[in-house]
């Protein structure tokens, strides 16, 4: 559990944040520039001192103005990966990596250099200096450096913002491995909803120095009232599925979920793997009858649960597909034409092409704990 209740005056902004959230998986902080995300994360790390308030991590008080507690950053064991990587320019990559590790008591070193080097693919970089690395390589080293300091929580403040698409794709899988294999709790700040959707379990919306909402990612991104904050980025449903079968001939994978079999372009995971799928509302269409001769592969019988707020051109329809949730975004006109109402039986059409890797997340499976799980 991460408990934050702080106040801090920052120039024109008065930050006043209350947050209680689980420290499992990835907690994403999202909000527009200047909202106070970095300030919040700095307070967690001990780099910025709140004017008032309390911060506690897994029951341990890190800061408490009333009790006069303020654990200095080097005793918090909170790793931090910054936007600008902040590698020490005078040290080789190897010494950068070991900087925190050397300062960790031997008994508390859960992973060693070799492991991190293997995990992040740093083998060829060890003898280089940070100046000779590309942006993506720098961030990988920064990640490794933070990991080797044996953190019980990892902060990442827009770690990919300075990278191009290709570099981003190069780093993201590593972050996923931290989450899934090391089961390291992560607080992840980003502007990019696509990163957040791919990584995060919990979403914290920050606006104007306040925590406006926090909760499971799926819930918050599909809440219409938060749309101004989460952006036009499509709402959607998250569905638990298992990889049932690969169809090598057509290069497809079939995923079984509560509503049936979903066909997607082939995924590079073994059969039987548990998966988390995100299906965006805008990629789902509805039909009253089961359509024939359609290129759309995924057609599921569904029942309309309810219909979103009206008032615009479009609205979201919440569906029940054999027990699994699904959202469809349709026009108001279509709603009238199809005469949709709660309880109505329809068919949900999911274009397989609309399910991309970014919508996939693997629930943590196995992996080691860097820290005992919370009591």
């Amino acid at each position: 559990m991460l408990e934050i209740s702080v106040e801090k005056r920052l120039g024109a902004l008065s930050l006043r944040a209350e947050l209680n959230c689980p420290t499992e998986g990835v907690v994403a902080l999202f909000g527009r520039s200047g909202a106070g995300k970095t300030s919040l994360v700095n307070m967690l790390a001990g780099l910025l001192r709140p004017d008032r308030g309390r911060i506690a991590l897994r029951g341990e008080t890190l800061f408490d103005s009333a009790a006069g507690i303020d654990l200095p950053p080097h005793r918090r064991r909170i790793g931090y990966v910054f936007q600008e990587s902040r590698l020490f320019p005078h040290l080789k990559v190897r010494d950068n990596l070991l900087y925190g590790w050397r300062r960790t008591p031997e008994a508390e070193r859960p992973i060693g250099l070799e492991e991190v080097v293997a995990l992040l693919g740093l083998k060829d970089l060890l003898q280089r200096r940070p100046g000779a690395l590309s942006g993506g390589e720098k961030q990988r080293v920064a990640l490794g450096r933070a990991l080797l300091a044996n953190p019980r929580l990892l902060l990442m403040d827009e770690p990919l913002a300075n990278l191009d698409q290709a570099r981003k794709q190069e780093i993201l899988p590593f972050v996923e491995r931290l989450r899934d294999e090391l089961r390291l709790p992560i607080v992840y700040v980003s502007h990019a909803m696509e990163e957040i959707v791919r990584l995060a379990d919990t979403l914290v919306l920050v606006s104007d120095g306040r925590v406006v909402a926090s909760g499971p990612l799926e819930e918050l991104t599909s809440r219409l009232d938060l749309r101004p904050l989460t952006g036009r980025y499509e709402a959607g449903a998250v569905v638990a599925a298992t990889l049932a079968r690969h169809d090598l001939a057509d290069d497809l994978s079939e995923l079984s979920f509560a509503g049936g079999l979903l066909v997607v372009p082939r995924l590079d995971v073994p059969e039987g793997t548990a998966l988390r799928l995100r299906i965006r509302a805008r990629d789902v269409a509805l039909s009253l009858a089961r359509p024939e001769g359609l290129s759309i592969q995924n057609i599921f019988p569904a029942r309309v649960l309810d219909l979103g707020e009206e008032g615009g051109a479009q609205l979201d329809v919440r569906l029940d597909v054999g027990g699994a949730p699904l959202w469809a975004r349709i026009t108001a006109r279509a709603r009238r034409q199809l005469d949709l109402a709660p309880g109505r039986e329809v068919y949900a059409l999911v274009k397989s092409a609309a399910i991309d890797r970014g919508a996939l997340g693997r629930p943590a499976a196995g992996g080691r704990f860097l820290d005992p799980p919370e009591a």
Partner: protein
Amino acid sequence: MFDLTASELAAIELSLRVGLWSVVGSLLPALGAAWLLARCDFPGKLVFDGLVHLPLVVPPVVVGYLLLVLLGRNGPLGQLLDAWFGITVAFTWRGAAVASAVMAFPLMVRAMRLSLEAVDRKLEAAARTLGAPPWQVFATVTLPLMAPGLLTAAILGFARSLGEFGATITFVSNIPGETRTLPLALYTFTQTPDGEAGALRLAVVSILLALVALAGSELLARRLRKRMAA
């Protein structure tokens, strides 16, 4: 022209020794002052800044006189030094080093302050999150990043020391083999008939020494910077 006499060689050796020790001895205090000026805010900071600059502003002879008053055999600090550590600076090469150090102090502080201000504090913050307590951050991050600035400060101080005359002769007199540094030997030459040649010789020597030191440090600093940037 470069057949240096034994006493000239002694003056050169002495000047190098004095320069070296004046730099070594003032590194820490200068670093401290630079730190205060670059990193701290305290009442009277402007006055402190002014004090640090004093040796620049006041004629060297006055500085030498003040040193004589403070650190001489009968001066309050001089007696303390003697009683506590058994160190005599008055009229010894150590005193010459002190005079040089004091005169070079503002230059060294300035160079260090600038390089300290140029150190990216974000890197220090990063080191703290990696478990380094403040003094380790200073030793393993701040100091190495300041290296080019420290080098500059040291060489500037050394070069300044090679030219120091007024404060030295006033404080520790002009005793051959003990306090007669290069500039003092040069002065002594000018006080004798036919001393021209000797004076010129020593002037050239001191200029060469300073040039070598400056050029060497410049090259080294460039290397350091390149290593960190490239």
